[in-house]
């Protein structure tokens, strides 16, 4: 039995007295798409930041392909094979789309010429190639989100973390992004996706993990989770216990 790609072992992250992530454990196997959902402030992005190295967990460990990576800096994890996008997109606005992607490719291809060849391939794959010479800052939100995915893919990652890549897009753009995510899965990447739009999560995920107030309240197939009383309570706010 091969190691899971990511194993999160009772990870806790506190900010002052606030438990942003509290004793969360789950694992992601090779080739899976895991949906991470939960109401606003549930700790999804915090968990993303822990896996990608932006935060060090207060307690607990994150294992990437069997090795403890908790507390390693993001740039090291990026070269090890964890690619991520940001909910609030972070393009290099003053540089061209091409240069944005070349910068990401440099981690795999240190020579600029090789990195540029690779960048063109990845841009072709994600369908942003016709914007190569535009300034990244001039793209629309949809374009910038696609650029985020392109940059994450240029790292040739093993695990791709997608943080709300369809939020704010119109229905047509949402469909195109879903298509792209499926294409990424076909490349045998493992994907962890945070999303509020249930249509996306239900369509894409093999399994869903639900967070609420930092704790994991459910995990399972999308259908099961959608019918889980705890999940319904978290989203709809039934006040059973107070009554």
């Amino acid at each position, binding site marked *: 039995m091969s190691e899971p790609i990511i194993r999160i072992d009772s990870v806790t992250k506190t900010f002052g007295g606030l438990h942003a992530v509290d004793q969360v454990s789950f694992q992601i196997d090779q080739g899976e798409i895991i949906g991470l959902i939960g109401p606003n402030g549930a700790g999804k992005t915090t968990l993303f930041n822990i896996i990608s190295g932006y935060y060090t967990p207060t307690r607990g460990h994150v294992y990437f392909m069997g090795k403890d990576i908790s507390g390693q800096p993001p740039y090291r994890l*990026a070269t090890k094979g964890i690619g991520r996008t940001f909910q609030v997109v*972070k*393009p290099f*606005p003053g*540089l061209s789309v091409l240069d944005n992607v070349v910068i990401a490719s*440099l981690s795999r291809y240190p020579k600029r010429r090789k990195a540029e060849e690779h960048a063109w391939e990845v841009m072709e794959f994600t369908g942003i190639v016709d914007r190569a010479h535009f300034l990244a800052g001039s*793209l629309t939100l949809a374009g910038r989100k*696609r650029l985020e995915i392109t*940059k994450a893919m240029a790292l040739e990652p093993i695990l791709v973390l997608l943080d709300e890549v369809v939020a704010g897009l119109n229905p047509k753009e949402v469909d195109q992004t879903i298509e792209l995510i499926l294409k990424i899965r076909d490349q045998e990447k493992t994907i962890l996706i945070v999303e509020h739009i249930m249509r996306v999560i239900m369509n894409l995920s093999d399994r869903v993990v639900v967070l609420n107030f930092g704790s994991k309240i459910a995990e399972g197939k999308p259908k099961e989770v959608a019918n889980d009383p705890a999940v319904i309570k978290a989203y709809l706010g039934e006040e059973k216990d107070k009554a």
Partner: protein
Amino acid sequence: MRRRNILWFTIIFVALLLLPIIFSDPFSLRIATEALMWIGLAISWDVIGGYTGRVNFGHGAFFGIGAYVTGILMMKGGWAFPITVPIAGLTAGLIALIVGFPTLRLTGAYFAIAMWSLALAFQQLVLLMTITGGPDGMRLPAFLNPEFFFYLMLGIVSISFVSLWYLMECASFGLKVRSIREDESGAMALGMNPTKIKIQAFVLSAIPAGLIGGIYAYWISYIDPASVFGDIITDQAIVMTIFGGMGTLIGPTIGAVILFAFKTLFWAYLSDYEVLYLIILGAVIALTVFFLPNGIWGTLSAYLDSRKIKKFGEVISQSTGDDNEYV
């Protein structure tokens, strides 16, 4: 494009090589040498200030350190000048390395303030020490050969220019520092180590300043804390870079030539009004920031690029026949 650049550099370099034959009088050579010096200081400032986006108000410190290293080694150590210049550059680089670790964690105005204070601290240090001659400064043996200094300055500045051109415009390092400038935490997600890259850029920026300082000391043959550690050195390099265009190498070169020519003419014909010079310098920088935020070269090359992109866009829409919805 690249080949055309090489052609231009060669033409300018050869023209500069021949310059002393045409203008052989010491005054013209001195002006030309100083112009080259300012080009070197402006392009080296731009490595950290423009390309990496960390505005350094203490660049003059590296120039001063280079000048004093050469002064001390020649006068107290009895070393030969050619050995002292590389040591001046290396010392400046080493100090940038040490200073960079704490200061480059700071961003924006805080880094500027930290470096400005550091430059002042060095000035005070030199004033207090006896080995540097304190406020009296140091007198170096006069070597009255304007051509020697012109060619030496030309050599050092050209080597700096070409190496920086290679690193910033051709190699991957230029993209790395730009990614740090644009978004440091975004760059981390793509495998960039910001601390390492910023320190590399800082050292790279300090070394030419140190080398030039070393040459300056022997050339002018007198250095004191006010002349080599003065704010005006940093300020002028910054104004030249911003006026010419930050984040490029041609920009600061153009800025240095124009502003130095202006300064020289001003000094030559309007020296009665020298107090006005700093006011004009201030006005130039304010107007540039308002009306030409990308500087002369930045504005010009953006215009040329926009024409190129327009052409590219036409080719794309012809070949695909549709408008993409991502933009």
